[in-house]
């Protein structure tokens, strides 16, 4: 298992070093806005906040509410494309 962990760490390191991680992040953000994911999530937030009351909102509350929903709401096309790019990256750097 150590090897796996090391493996993952190495891969992550590679991602960051080449700047691929940033690129992937930007790509994901743009795609999510395009498909309306952000608006959906915002509407959900509003409801949550109205329930809780404006003054009593904390970060933890929001995080707990939103991440689960957010992960579910990502459309399949976006997911597939991102995975594709990651695999390509891994394949490129396989020998490394």
């Amino acid at each position, binding site marked *: 298992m150590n090897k796996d962990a090391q493996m993952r760490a190495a891969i992550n390191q590679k991602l960051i070093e080449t700047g691929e991680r940033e690129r992937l992040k930007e790509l994901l953000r743009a795609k999510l806005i395009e498909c309306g994911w952000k608006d959906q999530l915002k509407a959900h937030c509003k409801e949550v906040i109205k329930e809780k009351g404006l003054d009593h*909102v904390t970060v933890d509350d929001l995080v707990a509410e939103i991440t689960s929903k957010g992960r579910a709401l990502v459309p399949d096309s976006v997911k597939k494309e991102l995975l594709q790019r990651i*695999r390509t990256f891994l394949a490129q750097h396989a020998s490394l």
Partner: protein
Amino acid sequence: MKMEEMSLSGLDNSKLEAIAQEIYTDLVEDSCLGFCFEVHRAVKCGYFFLDDTDPESMKDFEIVDQPGLDIFGQVFNQWKSKECVCPNCSRSIAASRFAPHLEKCLGMGRNSSRIANRRIANSNNMNKSESDQEDNDDINDNDWSYGSEKKAKKRKSDKNPNSPRRSKSLKHKNGELSNSDPFKYNSSSGISYEALGPEELRSLLTTQCGVISEHTKKMCTRSLRCPQHTDEQRRAVRVYFLGPSAILPEVESSLDNDSFDMTDSQSLISRLQWDGSSDLSPSDSGSSKTSENQGWGLGTNSSESRKTKKKKSHLSLVGTASSLGSNKKKKPKPPAPPTPSIYDDIN
């Protein structure tokens, strides 16, 4: 750790896939977290709910999706059928034509000053040959009414103001028409002959082509040499109006005598069949000959007879100067006996 140990090729695909999924999940969670921070900051700073409006206003500006309306709920051709009342002349005008109408009606704007200048120039032209003051006033008054505006416009479009032809035809018209009722001159370039009396008709026919157009049933107001109509047509019109003994225009003008009749023309026809002889007697009136020529479409001859003194010198060149002298007592116009032959040759 050495790089060689980290070789991914040793891993099987499922593990690769698992790694890819992990990376993906990390990325998504990053995005969500970023979003949460944004929202939290917006809530705490108080601008989170700013883009909301109350439900009533939301309903007002909802997107409209009905047939015949655009998304704002407006009808497409609404302003075409609407009519406005002009404050100047109190007529109801279509909305899309309202602005140009107002321009003309109030006499302001670029176009209306141009038209006014043109009209002044026209009335100056007409005034030169006009002696009748009353008619002058009538014509000037015409300028200010609506009908004559259109009249003036159409006349403008029919004839190029700069062409040399225009002045010629104007002179003819002004000499004759101003004495007749100017109101009968309508906007198409013709006269409706029903409204004219016989005297007016006659006077018109002496100066104008007069051929009745089939489409408009109006007489052509162009000159006697107008290229749109043949001499045969002109002759037919005159016969139609003035009877079978119709005197053709060149003969009919006051300068001509009235001794002409058809028998002369009969003899002339035979004579005009050119057989090479050049001693055609000029005693038979030259202008009557030209009337025959009209029947044959030799348009040039009619011009010969009409232009009185100028053509004399021309004819003398032809070689019958001697014969011209005898004709003077009869008519001031020079005869054109030899000219048909000349032109026959050319033709």
